């Protein structure tokens, strides 16, 4: 593109807008559905459809392990996948602040294109708006994804049953801590990276191997603790988690100690919680471990019948020295934009 910065003209629908679409977006998202450049994308799908939408406003927009572009693809791909569905198509809406350097936009769009390719989805339609300086912060992206549901009833937060095993695909808090540390300009002794990754391939394998999967959820904002509380509430059960089993990378643990944070409440962007009947736990773990994004999969807890010490909807944590306490929901913490 000839200009070095995004100007208001690029959102006008005129010539420069067209150039932006063809030279940046279409080039990096390259696929036949998008390339028709009709008013809408024509799609062919089978059976029940899962659909999810999410807005991404992370600040900073580039960080170790990813950027707002791959986050916008993977975040929505993962949400669709959590219904046991195969994500197929994405739409994306960009809100760009006037003055954003062109090379930054190009990098982010390229990163979205790569992420889509990795996840095996097509970005088939989109929209771009440019707003005056100060009306948005650099770049906001909204993506909507649809996918084909493989099995009904689909896995759901309402399906956890007493006796089920609670499995985790890997370490907690990597994304949340990386962003917090960057935002606050805190020098951390050990490097941390966002875990931003697509989970749909691992989910497809899980669904194939173990049709009995009761619940799949990705613990994004609010982290493991919040997501487990939601599941316990929706399913009308209690959950107990063994703290010493929850994987936390050393850099994240060290950063949390400095910042006074709890990794169990930090966001993840490439991890999932899988709840299955205990007898399928080993098989599910083996399946997850056969993927790089699930290499650290472990069982971290058990679903319990409510009433025995814990009420319906409560989550308890068994601490390393053998104590027990509630693992509650966070109360509107002062968190920066992390996704």
């Amino acid at each position, binding site marked *: 593109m000839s200009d070095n910065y995004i100007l208001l003209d690029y959102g006008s629908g005129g010539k420069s807008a067209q150039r932006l679409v063809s030279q940046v977006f279409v080039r990096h998202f390259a696929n036949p559905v998008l390339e028709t450049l009709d008013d809408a994308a024509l799609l062919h799908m089978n059976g029940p459809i899962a659909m999810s939408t999410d807005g991404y406003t992370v600040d900073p927009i580039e960080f170790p392990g990813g950027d707002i572009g791959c986050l916008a693809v993977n975040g929505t791909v993962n949400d669709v996948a959590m219904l046991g569905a195969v994500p197929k198509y994405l739409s994306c809406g960009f809100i760009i602040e006037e003055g954003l350097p062109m090379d930054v936009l190009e990098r982010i769009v390229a990163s979205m294109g790569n992420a889509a390719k990795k996840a095996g989805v097509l970005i088939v339609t989109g929209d771009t708006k440019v707003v005056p300086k100060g009306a948005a912060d650099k770049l906001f992206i909204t993506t909507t994804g649809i996918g084909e549901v493989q099995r009904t009833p689909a896995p759901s937060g309402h399906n956890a049953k007493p006796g089920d095993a609670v499995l985790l695909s890997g370490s907690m808090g990597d994304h949340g801590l990386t962003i917090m540390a960057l935002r606050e300009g*805190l020098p951390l002794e050990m490097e941390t990276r966002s875990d931003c990754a697509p989970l749909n391939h691992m989910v497809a394998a899980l669904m194939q191997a173990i049709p009995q999967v009761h619940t799949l959820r990705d613990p994004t904002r609010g982290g493991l603790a919040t997501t487990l509380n939601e599941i316990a509430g929706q399913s009308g059960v209690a959950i107990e988690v063994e703290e010493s089993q929850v994987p936390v990378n050393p850099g994240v643990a060290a950063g949390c100690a400095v910042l006074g944070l709890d990794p169990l409440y930090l966001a993840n962007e490439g991890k999932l919680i899988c709840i299955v009947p205990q007898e399928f736990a080993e098989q599910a773990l083996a399946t997850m471990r056969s993927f790089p994004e699930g290499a650290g999969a472990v069982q971290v807890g058990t679903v319990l019948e409510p009433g025995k010490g814990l009420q319906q909807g*409560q989550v308890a944590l068994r601490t390393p*020295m053998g104590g027990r306490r509630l693992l509650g929901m966070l109360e509107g913490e002062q968190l920066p934009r992390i996704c």
Partner: protein
Amino acid sequence: MPQASFSSKEFADPELCKGLLRTLRDELDGPLRFMEVCGSHTVAIFRSGLRSLLPEGITHLSGPGCPVCVTHDSEIAAFLALAEKDNVTIATFGDLMRVPGPKGMSLKQAKAQGARVQVVYSPLDALALARQEPERHVVFLGVGFETTAPGVAATIQTAAAQKLENFSVLCCHKLVPPALEALLQTSAASQQEVGAASQGGIDAFLLPGHVSTILGVQPYAFIAQQYHTPAVVAGFDPADILQALLLLVRMRKQGKAEVLNQYSRAVQDNGNPRARAVMDAVFSTVDAPWRGIGLLPGSGLAIRPEYAAFDAMQRFSLTLAPTPEPKGCKCGAVLQGLLTPPQCPLFGKACTPANPVGPCMVSTEGSCAAYFAYGNL
């Protein structure tokens, strides 16, 4: 509030803790009601699950140890009044954002309505902000105990040396020993009233490690000397707390009341004289209002006249208007160890972390909030 971390893996070792718990159980020779007076201790005891493992006979009470919880309504009202002024940027530790003032209004809400409120991790960040925005006046909200006060004092000195004209501090710092003294007085009085068999009373104190890195041990001597109550300065890992409890149990066994230092890896017996000197140079002691407790003599800090240019109270002619304590709240009794939070009729009903009625529910380190978050399992 960000604080230096002296946490050590060694003192969180589950096996060490299990051993200490066994020893504690063996040596305990009667009921012991201990009170911690530091929000970090409250959270550490609940979070580690230690509370569910304490031998029967040991009762854990949480005192007024969270600096955010004890920030008075009238002080919050002053923060909000400042936030409303054009051209003023408020710089604050994040924990204060949620604390509701008189009409339920908080800094968070003020920010949503357009006030400039910036969360900082250190008072020096506030100074940097003042340099970046010379056209605005930056007010740092000085809250906290002896742990944070020296850093704020040093920041004021730096601002003075740099002749910065658009920076001031709204000083609401509070001091720990005068609050302990007030607690011991009411505890003694209530025991006399109801007789020795009363449920109330404090047998021993777990003293705050962070504050003690500045104060040392001497300022607590009156606890043992005048009130014959044993006390131990302790760290924040589970084994620290267990070691301190063991020291308390042993002192009681021997009929001794002393102030001991378990946290010697971070706390020198004479504290940090340099930090205290900076504090003394910038601040003088005043009577201060504590939420849920009231006005305590000599329990707060004010900026000395030499540094009046950096005193937001004076620059903006603010005064603390008296405000009524919240209705139905039992915080006074909770903070004195006379009631546990679930015994308050509002606990978990009208009063929750999302909608706190009293100070103990406001901060995540408050005792009611800790009971609510971590449960009484």
